[in-house]
């Protein structure tokens, strides 16, 4: 669970920044805060490397059918020999650029298609978690102390569960694994940290005079939540989402590694790593390349989060 929100303190201990956007907006002489954030982002090498990696992964995911040299499921007759030994990386084309796996499938194609699974799970599961988290966080910030308390204690309970164990339990309960089961489980379990983050931020904004003025003039709760609180917590949401995507990609790989995630033959980096681990002495490429892909994807989203955090000064 700890790794679920590693930047926690980082993000929440910046109460001074609350309302910064509004404060900036009140100064008509300088560039808009959005523009300044963008400028900071574009001048931050870390942010650029992060976005580059994320962009690369997204391209691989979206264009997998066009980029991948072969079908990820095609088991080539020449892909393994009679003793089951896969083909080592071949540096010529056409061939198996990153070698083949134990079933004689082209590893490069599987890694490219694996990006699709990783991105699907990472993005959709995060979208679910963030939607629930933001809604409940804002609700908690605007509701009565009693309800807010109940909700937050519930969040405490959810956070107390070891995340991976909880996910594994849920996947086992559902019975058979599929990409959508993984997405739903990660989405449904991923929101509590988000609630806390959003609430912490929103509660501070709620005390601002302009919000009080809006309340006094009879604005509805929905209007307060959407018009006044949401824009102010948006930077936090962006940063935290990026981190959550990386966590979810890792979680999917972890589940697939354990055989609880995306079912074969759907290519998943996690199951490839699991296979690679068994044969790393004789066919190290099956372990190394999917591991590298996973590491790069996670690095990308983490660096992006870092860059966003700096640029948005959350």
């Amino acid at each position, binding site marked *: 669970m700890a790794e679920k929100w590693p930047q926690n303190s980082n993000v929440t201990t910046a109460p001074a920044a609350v309302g910064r956007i509004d404060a900036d907006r009140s100064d008509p002489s300088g560039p808009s805060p959005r523009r300044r954030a963008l400028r900071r982002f574009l001048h931050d090498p870390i942010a650029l490397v992060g976005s580059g990696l994320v962009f690369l992964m997204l391209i691989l995911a979206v264009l997998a059918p066009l980029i991948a040299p072969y079908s990820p*499921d*095609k*088991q080539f007759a020449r892909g*393994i*020999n*009679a*003793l*089951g*030994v896969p083909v080592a990386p071949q540096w010529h084309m056409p061939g198996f650029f990153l070698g083949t796996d*134990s*079933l004689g499938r082209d590893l490069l194609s599987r890694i490219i298609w694996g990006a699709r699974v990783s991105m699907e799970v990472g993005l959709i599961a995060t979208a679910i978690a963030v939607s629930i988290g933001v809604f409940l966080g804002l609700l908690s910030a605007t509701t009565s102390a009693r309800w807010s308390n109940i909700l937050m204690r519930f969040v405490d309970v959810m956070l107390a569960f070891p995340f991976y164990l909880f996910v594994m339990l849920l996947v*086992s309960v559902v*019975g*058979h*694994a599929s990409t959508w089961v993984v997405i739903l489980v990660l989405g449904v379990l991923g929101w509590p940290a988000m609630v806390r983050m959003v609430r912490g931020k929103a509660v501070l904004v709620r005390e601002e005079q302009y919000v009080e003025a809006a309340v006094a003039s009879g604005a509805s709760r929905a209007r307060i939540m959407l018009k006044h609180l949401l824009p102010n917590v948006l930077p936090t949401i962006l940063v935290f989402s990026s981190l959550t995507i990386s966590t979810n990609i890792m979680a999917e790989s972890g589940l697939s590694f354990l*055989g609880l995630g995306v*079912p*074969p*033959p759907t290519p998943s980096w996690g199951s490839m790593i*699991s*296979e690679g681990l*068994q*044969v790393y*002495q*004789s*066919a190290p490429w099956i372990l190394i390349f999917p591991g590298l892909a996973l590491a790069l994807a996670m690095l990308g989203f983490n660096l992006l989060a870092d860059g966003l955090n700096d640029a948005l000064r959350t």
Partner: protein
Amino acid sequence: MKTQQFSPKAVMGVAGAVMVLALAGCGSTPSSTSQSGRYGGTFTLAYQSDIPTLDPAGSPGFESAQAMYGLYNTLVTYAPTSTTIAPSLAQSWSVTAGGTVYTFHLRTGVKFSNGDPFTAQDVVYNLTRQINPKSASYAQSYYLDIQGAQAYAKGQASSVSGLKALNSHTLQVTLVQPEGYFLNILAMPTSDIADPRIVREYGKAYEDHAVGTGPYKLTEWKHNQVLTETRNPNYWGKKPYFSELKFILGPDPATQFLMFKRGEIDAMGPVPPADMPTINSTPALKKDLVVLADTGSIDFYFMDVRYGPFKNVLVRRALNDAINRKRLVALDAGQAVPANQYLPPGYPGSQSNLPPIPYNPSKARALLSQAGYKPGQLKLTLTVNNDPAVVQQAESVMANLQAIGVTVQLHTMSLSAYITALSGNQVHFGIIQWGLDYPDPSDIFSSLLVGAADGTGNFAWFNNAQVNHLVNEANAMSPQQEATRLKLYDEAQAIALNQQPWIPLIFPANTMLVSSSLHPAPTGANRYMYLGQLGIEANLIWK
């Protein structure tokens, strides 16, 4: 793969469903003991998990048998490297009354490792214990053909009338009907003879104090850590070479492989297919590799013949013709034989002249369209346990079926969940990895292909009147009519192979690594089912 096998009765047992994880490994430390000459030294083996039990009535499976082999004896056993029954605690026996009455003349002067004398009453006690419902032995059904066993099992009798100690060294066993494989059952680890005095003394805790008549005695068992057996000074047979057998409990096969390479264990097996390339490319390891081809195991997929598309024999034949079995052998690092029948090679009843099942996708497609399925129309769910090698095998089969226009969804689950699903009849197309409990066709046919009913191992629900008749007839023949018996099983197999309730995949070989500081190297014996047996039966010694 061969890393796990269904023990037949295991699957049939009610609660028992003990799947035998044959993740056997062994090894020993050449250390200083290797200098001590012909006798002596420790033979060190490793297992992935704790030894489940040392109690013959505690449903011992494959791993248990490995450690029990040194501790116990059975009335009869197998001649080294063969499937022929040989004397052990029973020196001789006679079969009369049309094959229903067995009279065993027991070896005299045999003592248990604690000095207690061994008598015919002890055998009666042990076999009765298997039948006693309180023992909940998965093997109970093996003994129910003994006269009076059913009544005793139901609590209608206080003893088993068919088990009689005529005197302290003569035992008479009466069966309700002849049974061609009864001696095979007496050679199973469940028929090991434990010391009744110790069983009574310790009750449920017996296994920690296990005492038998075997070449070794239990000296230490730290659960999940180590189990040590030392030479039994009271042993009646040939003195074993090693003074100690040591089982290290816990390391997984990958760790075992590392331990073997470092000389921390003396033998291991089965070798995971993933390690085979390393072994093949490393001369030092390659010379330690022992491949025993005839292991009496088969991997197959069953098709529930009552279920949807599987009702149609054309579909079942199409699926059989679509499988590239050579590829499956390659996935097993070449350490297997493509299966062309149900009886494993080298075992009684196996037909050596049967042609391979051809890999013929176009014929398979034709059969499918004959059955009324257009390409892409047939959708199946294949269920397997999530052992990596099993999943890989399944992926290869899926690609083969995809190629003939059959869409297969793979459903994987943990081994325990899979066993539960099997017993709950929730699997219509799934895997069975079967290791013969005893070398006789009845172990395949009676357990898996007849008597379609809940709670049996007939997961294909194959119910062919002719096959049922032939198998029942063959089962009830006395061992003296061996040739006729085997012919009946052969006829039954021919019918089954025509009806194809299964997709036989491969007969896996047993691959072991045995330290080359030991000799002689075990040869193509077909009965080294237990690595623990190596140190005793293969007469291994330190160089």
